[in-house]
């Protein structure tokens, strides 16, 4: 009898990124501050970006992510602190002599040049000879699937094509680091999702360190090896996408990365690896302690993502469950959002349920029980 084909459930730590990278640092940012008068656009940031890594700087506008990227590129200089790329200090080195290349948010395609001339722009100074230059340009155009469009003018290109030209123009220089400043924000949703996959694939093919600036959490989660989440000029957390999503260090990070239910908690016990908290809805819970957890009095917050709460149908039971009543229902096509009031909780829980079992038909007012995995509960600083 043939054995049934079945995906094995991964056993090891699922928060680890699956791709092994080199541990050699490529970019080292040490205590970097950038002030404009009294305002600190970047406040004492320290960060190491590894060789061959796809790294994202994620945060809302004004969080300092673009300032940091522009300082790596050499368009801006730190007020304090140091930046080194490939082991070499960047202090006093202007943008045109740094081993970095940038894809600009506006793409900055030279409008008076055609696609080939744009891509060859930086090569001209290297004096490679016509044959070698042509070969490199064609190689770069092939990498971004723009073969045959070399003679087009920038004004004759679509948004997606301009983006590819900007990529090719930077990649052709074979930089140590490719910097991307919100490269997908001007594209429509469908093209953006397609380009996310392509960018990731391209990065793995060329093996260059990519540093992406974005305010779109899904973009960062989908493409990155590691993410630095930034708020108000400070780096709040640096971790793999899974860890950032599942073990956010504080409420701000948790909130920025998508929907999260927050429950007030009291710390009962704290040690190096774990926290024990008391909550009203979920009782006494032991959770892993986030790496950068900083205790702020006796209070903390317990969080659970809406998709980690499952509706218990009929007489099904679970080891861990909470009971309540549906107060709102919102239909989103493939999923339904339920708002469930739990006795004792100051705020109702938000639940995301697939529509396979009829969550889209649950009447408002129905008593309901929700199952959860205690692993999905995360304690964090307020």
């Amino acid at each position: 009898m043939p054995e049934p084909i079945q995906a094995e459930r991964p056993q090891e730590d699922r928060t680890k990124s699956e791709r092994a990278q080199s541990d050699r640092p490529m970019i080292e940012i040490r205590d970097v501050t950038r002030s404009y008068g009294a305002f600190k656009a970047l406040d004492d940031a320290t960060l190491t970006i590894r060789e061959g890594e796809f790294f994202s700087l994620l945060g809302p506008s004004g969080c300092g992510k673009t300032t940091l990227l522009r300082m790596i590129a050499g368009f801006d200089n730190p007020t304090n602190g140091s930046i080194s790329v490939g082991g070499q200090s960047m202090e006093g080195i202007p943008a045109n002599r740094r081993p970095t290349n940038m894809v600009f948010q506006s793409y900055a395609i030279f409008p008076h040049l055609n696609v080939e001339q744009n891509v060859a722009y930086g090569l001209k100074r290297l004096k490679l000879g016509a044959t070698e230059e042509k070969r490199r340009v064609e190689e770069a155009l092939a990498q971004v699937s723009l073969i045959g469009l070399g003679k087009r003018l920038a004004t004759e290109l679509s948004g997606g094509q301009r983006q590819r030209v900007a990529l090719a123009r930077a990649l052709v220089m074979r930089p140590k680091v490719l910097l991307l400043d919100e490269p997908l924000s001007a594209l429509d949703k469908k093209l953006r999702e397609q380009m996310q996959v392509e960018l990731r694939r391209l990065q793995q093919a060329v093996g260059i360190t990519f540093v992406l600036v974005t305010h779109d959490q899904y973009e960062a989660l989908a493409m990155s090896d590691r993410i630095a989440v930034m708020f108000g000029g400070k780096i709040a957390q640096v971790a793999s996408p899974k860890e950032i999503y599942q073990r956010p260090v504080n409420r701000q990070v948790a909130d920025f990365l998508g929907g999260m239910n927050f429950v007030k908690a009291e710390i009962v016990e704290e040690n190096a690896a774990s926290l024990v908290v008391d909550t009203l809805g979920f009782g006494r819970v032991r959770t892993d302690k986030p790496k950068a957890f900083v205790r702020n009095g006796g209070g903390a917050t317990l969080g659970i993502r809406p998709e980690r709460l499952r509706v218990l149908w009929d007489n099904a039971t679970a080891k861990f469950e909470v009971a309540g009543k549906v107060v709102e229902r919102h239909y989103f096509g493939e999923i339904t959002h339920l708002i469930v009031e739990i006795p004792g909780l100051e705020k109702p829980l938000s639940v995301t349920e697939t529509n396979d079992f009829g969550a889209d038909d649950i009447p408002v007012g129905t008593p309901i029980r929700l199952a959860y995995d205690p692993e999905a509960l995360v304690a964090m600083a307020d």
Partner: protein
Amino acid sequence: MTAMRRFFAGGWLTAYAFLYIVFLYLPVIFLPIFSINTAPTPKFPLTGYTLKWYQDLPKTPALLEAAWNSLIVGVSASVLATLLGILAARSITRYRYPGRRTINGLIMAPLVLPEIILAISMLLVMLQLGLSLSLFTVVLGHVLICIPYSMTVLTAGFEGFDRSLEEASADLGESAFGTFRRVTLPMVAPAIISSLLVCFTISLDEFVIAFFLTGTETTLPIYIWGQLRFAAKLPGVLALGTLLLLASFVLMTVAEVLRRRAARRTQNEGGLYA
């Protein structure tokens, strides 16, 4: 109802537009018409067709000298005004600083100041400075009135110039000078040429300031003014006037085409991501 509306829209408005154009251009049309008339007095009916007034022009040394003077003044004034205009327009469009709008307003002011007042004030200043009146003083005067035109053309060309284009060039390894040569200059060249042409045209047919500020040398408009005192010279003036008119028209058309091309080039870039 619709018919009536069409009558008003099509009929009256067309007639109005037609009259408007006639009012603007009828006087100008007489110039070329009488310049090819055989009679020396500009009167209807026309007596016959001739090109002799045109043929006589190159035979007048005073006229050639005036034309040469005008060329020198026009070229110098347009180059100087455009150079100063480039600096000012770059500052106005690129940087944000207190007093930016006021400075812009002050630079544009000569456009609306009475020319005769400007001319008299400049004359007083020049004399106070001990400058002897010459073509040089005329050039200074023309620079003053050309700068607002130069600014208008250049700010349109510079506005929307995406700063990241220059950053991209630096990022790709180019030096500051190389960036200026390979990116900035080609991008703004149409606007600069357009400014040169506009300034030259303004200078070419400017009379009041040239009249006040020149010494013994005459420019073309001053030459024409001098000729008007002799009735017999009128046809030659008409012929010369026609040529000047034609030159201005051609220069301004080229300038406008270039200005639009420059604006389109820079705005295409910025507009898509606005």
